[in-house]
């Protein structure tokens, strides 16, 4: 039951985009079409879960025993950069259909703050390995949900006339504000 609540909490109450402000660039940039946002969402989910697991092991087995905690940032980002490269090559060779749907998003993910943010967040919360992986899965599901919702709204907006100054990112941010307002209502659930 606790795990269920944690999932709901990570997806709705503390949504990573709308309440924790991570991953704004893809949220505003990749939300023009639903198919693109699903692709980006699943790529982030895939990499975030893998990255959380690997960085957790690195932190606990390598950095903590040798008292190197202050190197966390630089080690994590290099691990993530290497991981993304490796995943890209692996998918290209082994699972071409998956590479076709996720491949174009992978290079963008290295500098996505969702992935590094989740890896650091689970360290600060001091979760165990299983919970950390579960949490980062739940949080990236929340990311995908926000992206798909935004894409749905944007597809309708393409048909409307908006004031020139508000077009694009500006209106996107205001819509995100309204979405975040409605997500705040979930706070009463837990």
């Amino acid at each position, binding site marked *: 039951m606790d795990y269920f609540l944690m999932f709901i909490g990570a997806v709705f109450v503390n949504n990573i985009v709308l309440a924790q402000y991570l991953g704004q*660039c893809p949220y505003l940039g990749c939300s023009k079409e639903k198919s693109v946002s699903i692709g980006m969402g699943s790529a982030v989910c895939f990499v975030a879960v893998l990255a959380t697991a690997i960085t957790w092991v690195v932190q606990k087995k390598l950095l903590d025993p040798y008292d190197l905690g202050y190197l966390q940032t630089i080690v994590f980002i*290099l691990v993530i950069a290497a991981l993304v490269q490796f995943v890209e090559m692996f998918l290209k060779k082994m699972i071409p259909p998956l590479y076709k749907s996720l491949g174009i998003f992978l290079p963008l993910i290295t*500098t996505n703050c969702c992935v590094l943010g989740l890896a650091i967040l689970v360290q600060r919360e001091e979760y165990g390995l299983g919970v950390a992986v579960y949490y980062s899965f739940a949080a990236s599901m929340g990311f995908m949900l926000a992206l798909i919702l935004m894409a749905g709204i944007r597809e309708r907006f393409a048909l409307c006339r908006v004031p*020139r100054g508000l077009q694009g*990112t500006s209106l996107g941010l*205001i819509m995100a504000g*309204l979405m975040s307002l409605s997500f*705040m209502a979930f706070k009463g659930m837990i």
Partner: protein
Amino acid sequence: MASMWKEFSKGLWNEIPPFRLVLGLCPTLAVTKSADNGLGMGLAVIFVLVLSNAFISAVRKIIPKKVRIVCFIAISATLVVAVELLMQAFAYPLYQQLGIFVPLIVVNCIILGRAEAFAAKNPVHLSIADGLGIGVGYTLALTLVGALREMLGTGMLFGKYIMWESFQPFKIMVEAPGAFLALGSLLGLMNCITIIQARKRGDELPVNLTSGCGGACCNPEK
């Protein structure tokens, strides 16, 4: 000297990061609960940006083209670790306030964006001027957004009460939705000013007002 001033001053209005380049949105939203948080974050970014621009432009001829992104990330990550340690030593309350967003300066698109777009092509002194200009512009923008949210959300500015007595604070402005609303409306305002300016001068209207790292995601095939 004149060219250095040109590179510096473009960051203050023509290419002010969160509004014109639309880079580095996550910290702009997250740390602007109050004006002094915004200012502190901005100073940290100035430090990283100026030094990373300087180092990258100094070694730009040595780095092979294929692995340049990883090299840029390694350089900026080193500087971010330095900032983290400095902040823990000298500004611990601020470090705690900014929380996870201090290490996340590494993945701030401004740092990599300027490295790729400017420092990798230009000599050291121009790159420092560019980093300083963009950094100061970013700090100004963060402080502006922070001041707006703090004023409307709590009636205070830099911790001092400034609104009239019967003022009822809009609590929502210091919560998550307020961040999006404040930044969205400021961005819209900036765009309107640009359009009016362009009309007055009789120029063509700028076609793509807002792209930035979001724009790069839209067209991944580029």
